[in-house]
């Protein structure tokens, strides 16, 4: 079995495809507009209605999907590197669920009215709580299966609290607001929403970047990684912090969107020689691309009510998750 490494070509291809997908998202939608009006609006020479649709509705939404996909897939790739397990992902490990629970709590008790920062900060706090918990548990449990089960537990717990809040929701508006965060959606996002999340996304990306060489070393396992000169504890902190910030910020924009963090790194890995450090950037780009396309599907499928992005992502992602899990026969005998 030869190991292939096409990282530069892959990154270039993904950037080109992402730009095309983003452009397509701006040009396609439920309001039928002729191409020439859209293109004019695109370059800033169109009529007011077309400009509004492109710049205020479609582009922010497409960018939100792209950024959220990047953040979640990057987090997934980093968690997989740290835990040495291709099934680790913010959704599966309960990080997204905990993060959206915290976001929903701020909506439920009306904290969101205090400041626009409350919701993103709460979402990040929830994500950090879950990643921190996982990082504490990870060295103690020998089997990755146990760790995934702990994640499932965290996810279920957050889900139960969320159901409780839904159960007790005071009015239908709160209810629909909360549902949005649980199902995951980028509908009606503005550029302001993205700017609010931006500092956390940048900080998270930097933290993951700092952890990258360590993820490569961790291929050998923790003891051997430490033996070749890696400060394992520090790597763990960078990844926990980075994935907490990225997932929290992603949830604050779009709510819980699952599985993109598993699919993207899984598809990318064979093309970058399975190096966990080289997986990060292409996985993030592919995650962004996948969500832009998924959101386009959600918008264009002619259903009575618009599909939620999280639902589309899960419908595509969950079967792939099962496929990866079944194919990984050695899961039980890991480590």
């Amino acid at each position, binding site marked *: *079995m*030869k*190991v292939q*490494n096409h990282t530069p070509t892959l990154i270039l291809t993904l950037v080109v495809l992402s730009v095309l997908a983003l452009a397509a998202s701006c040009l396609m939608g439920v309001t039928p507009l002729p191409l020439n009006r859209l293109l004019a609006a695109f370059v800033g020479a169109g009529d007011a209605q077309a400009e509004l649709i492109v710049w205020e509705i479609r582009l922010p939404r497409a960018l939100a999907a792209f950024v959220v996909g990047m953040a979640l897939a990057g987090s997934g790739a980093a968690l997989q590197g740290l835990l*040495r*397990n291709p099934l680790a992902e913010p959704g599966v490990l309960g990080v997204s669920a905990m993060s959206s629970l915290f976001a929903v709590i701020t909506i439920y008790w009306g904290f969101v009215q205090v400041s626009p920062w409350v919701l993103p900060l709460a979402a990040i706090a929830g994500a950090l709580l879950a990643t921190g918990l996982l990082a504490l548990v990870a060295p103690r449990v020998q089997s990755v299966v146990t760790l995934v089960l702990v994640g499932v537990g965290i996810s279920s717990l957050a889900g139960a609290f969320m159901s409780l809040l839904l159960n007790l929701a005071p009015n239908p508006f709160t209810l629909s607001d909360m549902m949005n965060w649980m199902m995951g959606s980028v509908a009606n996002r503005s550029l302001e929403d993205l700017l609010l999340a931006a500092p956390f996304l940048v900080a998270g990306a930097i933290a993951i*970047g700092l952890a*990258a*060489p360590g993820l*490569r*070393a*961790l*291929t*050998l*396992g923790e*003891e*051997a990684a*430490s*033996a*070749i*000169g*890696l*400060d*394992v504890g520090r790597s763990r902190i960078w990844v926990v912090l980075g994935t907490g910030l990225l997932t929290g910020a992603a949830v604050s924009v779009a709510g819980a969107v699952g599985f993109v963090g598993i699919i993207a790194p899984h598809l990318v*890995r064979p093309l970058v*020689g*399975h*190096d*966990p*450090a080289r997986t990060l950037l292409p996985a993030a780009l592919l995650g962004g691309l996948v969500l832009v396309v998924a959101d386009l599907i959600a918008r264009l499928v002619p259903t009575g009510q618009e599909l939620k992005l999280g639902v589309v992502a899960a419908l595509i992602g969950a079967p792939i998750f099962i496929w990866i899990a079944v194919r990984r026969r050695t899961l039980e005998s*890991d*480590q």
Partner: protein
Amino acid sequence: MSLKLHEASVTLQGAPLLRDVSFEVQSGKLVGLLGPNGAGKTTAVRALLGLQPLNAGQAYLDAQPAHSLSAKQRALIVSYLPQARKLAWPISVREAVALGRFAYGGPMGRLGPADAAAVEDALSRCSLKGFEDRAVTSLSGGELARVHLARALAAQAPALIADEPTAALDPGHSYDVLAALQAQARAGQAVLVVLHDLALAARFCDEIVLLNQGQRVIQAPPQEALTPPILAEVYGVNGSWHRDQLILSGRI
């Protein structure tokens, strides 16, 4: 240059794992760390490296207290191969060997020409030429053992510690590994190797450190360390020397 464990004691949850253990590994020597299962060999290695906190005693790597060194400083003094062999991802042989140069990498893990040369040298010394692009997960046990050994050699540290590098290897591959370690010692490296195979240790090691129930029995050349009475007491086996070969002949 030497690695030194001085009167080290380790107690874990009330159970003494090491009691007052002292030994030293000097440059140019291949030292075998031997002992029955549960004698404390791995604990002693980890204590020596500063990975296992000591309840009493000291560990020195090149005259520096082991616990005071960062992971990177430690890696530059001693290259350590723990027992775990499994790699999490099917990376290439070359990249797995290059991980041995991790401590020399820049902030983003970039390696220079000197590192590349060290990796090439290690690959050829472990007969891994032609295997460079193979996935580590597709290798046989013997090939994988060579990859790990090459990784340790690529570090070019003044000392090397290997914890059971011959576990699950057939006799031929075990000889190859020990011969490589012996060559490292001859070239001036201080080499400590944990072994289970007494005959193999007797054949290759310059000195034996024998542990039993957390205590050091003796540190001496093989013929003095693995005498029939000591073998009987520590391992419960009959053994005898025929010139420079140790022959084991069953349980007592």
